[in-house]
């Protein structure tokens, strides 16, 4: 257990107040990824693997510089390479680091039924607690970015922790530290938003990227990972970044209104039982049955 602790804002599968949410408010941490200065070097991939002590994955070359098709339970951080044809016919290479977005309104947490398997700390980091994880995979259905991955050996779900172990000790996440060009930044959400908007403006004003902008989708309440894109109107070109990600309706419904309808129904049931008890008193078990150890 680390010396430092982080307060928790939200817990999966847990009703009532999240412990810690009422204590002092932390900064919302945020990772800024400036895709216009990403050189696809994969230092972030290696730094992530090395820091988190993951074993090696057998990969296969697939007509691309990309290491593998998708992130994996033991590969949380993947640069997606896209050969992109611009309007004038010239070619460019769009490279985007793909990882958990640490949504302000995390679909995975919303969907998760296991008590304490997914937590959102007061600094905004969404973290999986494998000791509480039941491996059901509902988090996958809740995630619009297809991030949580299942480890078939331990039957647990895994994803980027935003190096919560480092962050809680005042260090930046491993990927951030390694990034050679500084396309990755880390700080408070406000600062990162500011930096991102400034950079996007610079790209529009000085480098001819008229559609440059910041990706911080409102559909999930904003994200703890934001992007600067050369063309914010076309996030799909960056390896399938969803234009308007949202938590799937069913997940929201079941874990939102449906849950409370259910709770009400449950309360009604309990109320009924109580009233029944008050009205009719305890149920009398037949003496014969009691002698048979409860068996009829």
């Amino acid at each position, binding site marked *: 257990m680390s010396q430092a602790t982080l307060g928790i804002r939200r817990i999966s599968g847990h009703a009532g107040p999240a412990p810690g949410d009422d204590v002092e408010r932390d900064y919302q941490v945020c990772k800024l990824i400036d895709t216009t200065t990403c050189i696809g*070097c994969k230092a972030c991939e290696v730094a992530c*693997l090395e820091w988190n002590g993951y074993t090696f994955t057998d990969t296969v070359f697939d007509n691309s510089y990309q290491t593998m098709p998708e992130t994996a339970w033991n590969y949380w951080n993947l640069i997606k390479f896209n050969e992109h044809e611009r309007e004038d016919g010239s070619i460019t290479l769009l490279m985007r680091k793909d990882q958990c977005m640490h949504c302000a309104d995390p679909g995975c947490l919303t969907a998760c039924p296991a008590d304490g398997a997914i937590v959102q700390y007061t600094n905004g980091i969404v973290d999986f607690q494998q000791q509480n994880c039941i491996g059901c995979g509902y988090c996958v259905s809740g995630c619009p970015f297809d991030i949580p991955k299942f480890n078939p050996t331990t039957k647990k779900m895994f994803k980027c922790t935003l190096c919560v172990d480092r962050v809680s000790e005042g260090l930046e996440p491993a990927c951030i530290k390694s990034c*050679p060009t*500084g396309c990755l930044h880390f700080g408070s959400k406000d600062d990162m938003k500011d930096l991102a908007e400034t950079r996007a403006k610079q790209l529009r004003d000085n480098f001819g990227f008229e559609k440059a902008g910041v990706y911080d989708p409102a559909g999930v309440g904003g994200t703890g990972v934001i992007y600067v894109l050369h063309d914010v109107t076309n996030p799909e070109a960056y390896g399938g970044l969803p234009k308007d990600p949202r938590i799937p309706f069913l997940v929201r419904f079941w874990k939102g209104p449906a849950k409370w309808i259910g709770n009400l129904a449950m309360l009604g049931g309990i109320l009924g039982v109580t009233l029944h008890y008050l009205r009719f008193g305890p149920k009398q078990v037949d003496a014969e049955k009691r002698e048979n150890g409860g068996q009829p």
Partner: protein
Amino acid sequence: MTNGWIDIKNTDMMLIMGGNPAENHPCGFKWAIEAKRTRNAKMIVVDPRFTRTAATSDLFLQIRAGADIAFLGGVLRYAIENNRIAKEYLVNYTNAAFIVKEGFKLPEDGLYSGFDGATQTYDRSSWNYEEGNDAGGEAPAHAAAHTAPSAAAAKSAGTTLGAAAVTPTPLPAMPPKVAYDLTLQHPRCVFQLLRQQYSRYTPEMVERITGIPKDQFLKAADLFTSVRKDGDMKKVATIMYAVGWTQHSFGTQIIRTAAILQLLLGNIGRAGGGVNALRGHSNIQGATDMGGIFDIWPGYLKVPNPTDVDLAAYLKRITPTPSKPAPWDSFNYWSNTPKFAVSYLKAMYGDAATKENDFAFDYMPKVDRNYSWTQIWDNMYRGSVKGMFAFGMNGVAIGPDSQKNIEALKKADWLVVGEIYPDETSEFWKSPGITPEEMKTINTTVYRLACAGFAEKDGSMTNSARWLQWKNVAVPPPGECRLDQDIVAQIFLKVRDLYQTQGGKFPDPILNLTWAYTNAQHPALGDLAKELNGKALADLTDPKTQVTIKRGQQLPGFAWLKDDGTTACGNWIYSGCWTEAGNQLSRRGTEDPSGQGIYQNWAWSWPANRRVLYNRASCDPSGKPYDATRKQVWWNESTQLWMGNDVPDFKPDSNPKDHMGPFIMNAEGVGRIFGPLGAFADGPFPEHYEPIESPVQNALHPNQSKNPVVKKLKTAADKYASPGDGFNIICTTYRLTEHYHYWTKNNRMNVQLVPEPFIEIPVELAAELGIKGNDKVKVTSARSYYVAKAFVTKRIKPMMIDGKKIYQIGIPIHQGYRGIQEDAGRDARTILNRLTPTVVDPNAFTPEFKGFLVKVEKA
């Protein structure tokens, strides 16, 4: 690098060509991104492929591999035609105003004056300055620059052309008083010759040769030269390159073109400027500094040759004398050569090096021909090189023509490999294709010595910014591994022991070599660093300051070196690295008061801890910085001294009124737009030549397509292709950011990032050949073949070269026959350099790894 990594952040304009820093120097490339972010600097990338560097550029141009001089020559022409030049800088800091001798001829037909076809060499005596005074007012009788010298003139120069190739013949000296024309109008002044030379490099010609459409070329030329729009001198442009420039049969001249362009634009010596060799390895800068190559001693002293019958003759030959316009001054720092050379001999031979025996000058081997890399393999192949030490150097994989190197090793008696991983060189005798029967016939004894890795050794490495940084030992070597220095010391001491006890051929240099290390069998690298720095062998007193250095003390720097045997110094440019104040290489001061990224107190850089070379040129002739916001050095009128944020690379008390040139390592004191006499083997100006294997004729002079002084090797293994034989696709080679040379194929972390070797093929070529992504492809050159998977990409496009459709492909170099994937049988175990040709650049002797011809087929 003339400048340094962090200094790139000071630039306004970047031209990245012949290099791919985003992939090969990611952490240095951050400063290019920094310049974009903080100064809105623009970046132009010119490369045969759209690389990951190109992905962050503002303008990318796809060039045909090997057409770089044509492109840069076109930019030179554009700058001159559009008056985007630094006139004052050009006149005062370069040899633009110098007048060249009558009889010098430009290569309109592909040949400079003085060419001898029989020996494929130039008599360079006409490549000289004219002696005289200010010729500004004189009306020249005729423009003689392009008239060929008469046969009589060549004879009267007294040259012996035939022997020139074998025995070095002394060239005439440069005149002490050079004729000049500060108006730059004289038809034989360097500037006018330059204008004439590149007048042929029109945008149309650039397009024909490089394949870059005229409009795109003009866009790039306009953007790059825009830093000198309207005569403004504040802005600065930098050029970055790597082996994409050096690995050609005209590589040195590509870099020369870049240097000329930077002189023309006044970008050298300035923060954010320069010509910057990025360099691909952690200590090849240091290895060169240390004379780890055949043609130099430590500190770039020329090696002696047999004409140097004694030390005096040697020193006279290698010590230049000033050559400049009479009213100007030239520091001519190489005039100190005798001090450096004698101190080196004293470091080598100590008390055995005396004035009487010419400081043991005869102990040193005398070199009279090319002994460079490809010559080693050629002569081993021919049977004269019997033994080889390969320490951390995978000669088989590095090539060129790897199979030739394997065949050569089969003929050697012995090979000693010092390595940390099993490599291709140590296992040449069981390389793919060798049968058990053949193995029995290979009589080479191979020792493979387990060495220590970087974390297990201390010592310093010199980066491309010339910083020497000391590293510490983190862990002991594993198993029975030994430190490299211990192995070499122990072998040498054993050899010395044998000569001591048994005698043998000329044992004196072996027996008398200094060996004053605390632990003879385990020399500490700190002891060696102290020897490099140098020490006083007698009490020395500076007559000016009366400061005294006691006998035995470490010297503060190379200014203290003497030519009378009272100082010893292993490498003069490293003098100052380990002084009486201790190890300067481990300094860790992080302060940078000027904000220019100079970091004066971090580690130590040669020479004398200067971070930007030739920084006097960042000021105008009066000593005032061209850009007040990026002040590096300046003349202080009150102290009558040069001072600055960086250490002035100049004579500290030279008043600007004396007009001393800022390029103190040149005898002229100024930058060389024209490279006189022996400076270059293939011409005083760069000229575009085709690679040795090219799909087209040279559009400038089809009758002289290739570099005329480049010689092909002649063993049975040296084969060269022409398009007529069906080899018509251009192949270029490179590294990937995920891998380092032939090293990280042993590292699972890197292997998983790029698990298999591949060949990058344009979509259009793949369609023609019926190749799909991930298909197995065979690439064949005149030498051999290579097999890997196809990476079909839009990032390399077909090109129109002189009206002909040409394809280029690209192959990363990292496959071998020992490695994680190789051992698991997951690739074809072919080495890329089986394909590459054995021709070399005539100046630097670097092989032409880039731009050779191949055939491509589905395997």
